[in-house]
């Protein structure tokens, strides 16, 4: 085969490898894209801990939903199912959780916001979803969320749903958990 051919093969081979790594790059790219555009309901921890001054805050209703993933036996309920908030101010909410089994277990809560274009405007300062929660048998806890809905929330949204699903990650090994830490890092 002539030189031109050999170069073509090399080039194509490298393209193949590049596309393989591109598919892995899609993983963080996906998160970045969601964060930048605020879509898909993903929420990240907010750095800013100063109180926002509510200049012209408007009323929004926040509904809290809890879900247990398959075979997760804990009791998991929001302390209040609905909270009326004013945009621009921080609020505290809690979720009640109890390990009803006879072994120590670890849970991970995964948040989801609806509508998805509200996610960019829901800032969480503190959230139990940022860390794994370990409970001893029979232990109960009130898990906190400190959040704010910014004034930039589109006007037509009057109701925001903040949902958490708890998963049993007791058996997840250290690798999983390291991966997990990456995704709940502050941004």
């Amino acid at each position: 085969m002539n030189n031109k051919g050999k170069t073509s093969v090399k080039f194509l081979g490298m393209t193949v490898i590049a596309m393989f790594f591109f598919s892995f790059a899609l993983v963080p790219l996906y998160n970045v894209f969601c964060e930048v555009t605020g879509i898909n309901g993903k929420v990240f921890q907010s750095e800013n801990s100063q109180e926002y001054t509510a200049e012209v805050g408007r009323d929004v209703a926040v509904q809290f939903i809890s879900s247990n993933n398959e075979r997760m036996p804990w009791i998991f309920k929001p302390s209040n199912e609905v909270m009326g908030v004013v945009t621009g101010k921080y609020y505290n909410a809690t979720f009640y959780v109890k390990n009803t089994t006879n072994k120590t277990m670890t849970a991970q809560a995964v948040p989801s916001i609806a509508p998805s274009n509200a996610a960019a405007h829901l800032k969480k300062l503190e959230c139990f979803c940022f860390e794994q929660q370990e409970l001893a048998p029979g232990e109960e806890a009130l898990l906190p969320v400190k959040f704010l809905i910014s004034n930039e929330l589109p006007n037509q949204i009057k109701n925001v749903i903040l949902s958490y699903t708890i998963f049993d990650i007791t058996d997840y090994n250290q690798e999983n958990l390291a991966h997990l830490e990456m995704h709940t890092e502050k941004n």
Partner: protein
Amino acid sequence: MSAVIENHHDDHHHGPAKGLTRWLYTTNHKDIGTLYLWFSFAMFLIGGAMAMIIRAELFQPGMQIVEPEFYNQMITLHGLIMIFGGVMPAFVGLANWLVPMMIGAPDMALPRMNNLSFWILPFAFFILLSSLFMEGGAPNFGWTFYAPLSTTYAPPSVTFFIFSVHIMGASSIMGAINVIVTIMNMRAPGMDLMKMPLFVWSWLITAYLLIAVMPVLAGAVTMMLMDIHFGTSFFNAAGGGDPVLFQHIFWFFGHPEVYIMILPAFGIVSHIIETFSRKQLFGYSSMVWAMLSIAILSFVVWAHHMFTVGMPLAAELFFMWATMLIAVPTGVKVFNWIATMFRGSITFETPMLFACAFVVLFTLGGFSGLMLAITPADFQYHDTYFVVAHFHYVLVPGAIFSIMAAVYYWIPKWSGNMYDERLGKLHFWLSFIGVNVTFFPQHFIGLAGMPRRYPDYALQFADWNMVSTVGAFLFGISQVFFLFIVIKTVMGGKKATDQVWEGARGLEWTVASPAPYHTFGTPPKVD
């Protein structure tokens, strides 16, 4: 000791080796083309048998033949085998046979890699099919294998499925590299890119698509493997991942994949319509630009497979508009084929019958595709038999008919024998009726509300399901008839001339029929 005169070897070509090892070791593009085509025919019949089982179960409401668990294995394997074992290898087989001859090259650029590309395929499919006998059964999560059904909830055979997919992907990638390097480097002098036959163009573009997206499929299944065995959480929400990410990665591969499965068909149909209309193809350069546009657009429409996943409005609108746009270049191609026929001098030998049926029925599939692109309407079509009808129309009377057309068209060149024209026409009509009786009613049941991947259904869907099953059996039997026709042709028949078809143009028709084992040892002059 005698001095061996070196140039002895330059004077003659060796004919094919004798015996079975010929096929194992061959680096000849014609042999490898033959291997791919026979392999794909075998896979087509196996995938077809699975379709018969599926349609037999759906003949009547109630579970009569198989259990739901096994039914899910059938639909999964049917899809995988038809796509990766049927359509794709058939097109690669055609590329192998035809591309070197069409560009006046003696063989493919990388003949030994060509051999490897083929032989890993039977190995991959042996693994995939043997999963039927494994503990937990074969993969049962659909050919689109969404997580977490295909990760956390998958049977143990999923690991073999992943291994098998990696091998198939490697085969396609190597084949694509071979095609690109061949076309870019080995064209006869005077054959500029815009003078290349359209089948060659279609394969050049297809090969680039394969290079771009098969590695992404490999990435997706590797991530699956890692989630299943190495404790990662790409697609597991509990670990910080996202099942929807799987769908994005999969369909980023998946959408270009469907164009990979149709572009070579476009090339074939252009050749056949030109020949049997005895008129030069209308709008050669637009045909090239249309294929290029389709290929490029194919990268930005993937999420139209995911309209119900919960994407934000802006994303849904973007994907709706981009998807609708693909109708424009595709329409251009259809109009150009018809314009080629218009005021031509047409005869309807079997290849032309299949090509004309392609134009009509693929367009029908295109119409249902356009309907599916309309997002609010798609909420009612998604995951129903309307989608099944759509993709079977573009794949069966689309891709598969083009492959059959290609076989009838070029088999006189490959074998030196004409196929029996009456039998060919009979096969066409049986297939045409079969395909429409099978898939047209599926539009109805989809619109009426029957979801896909259901082994059983509510009573209002019974009538058309029964009709569809009857069509499927007719179509299935017709393909066994096709096998008979092909074998009969290869074994003997009216001798073919070199030209074979009165209106045929292209370098492949300038060599003898059957084509000599080695052709274009010296490149021809192209004006």
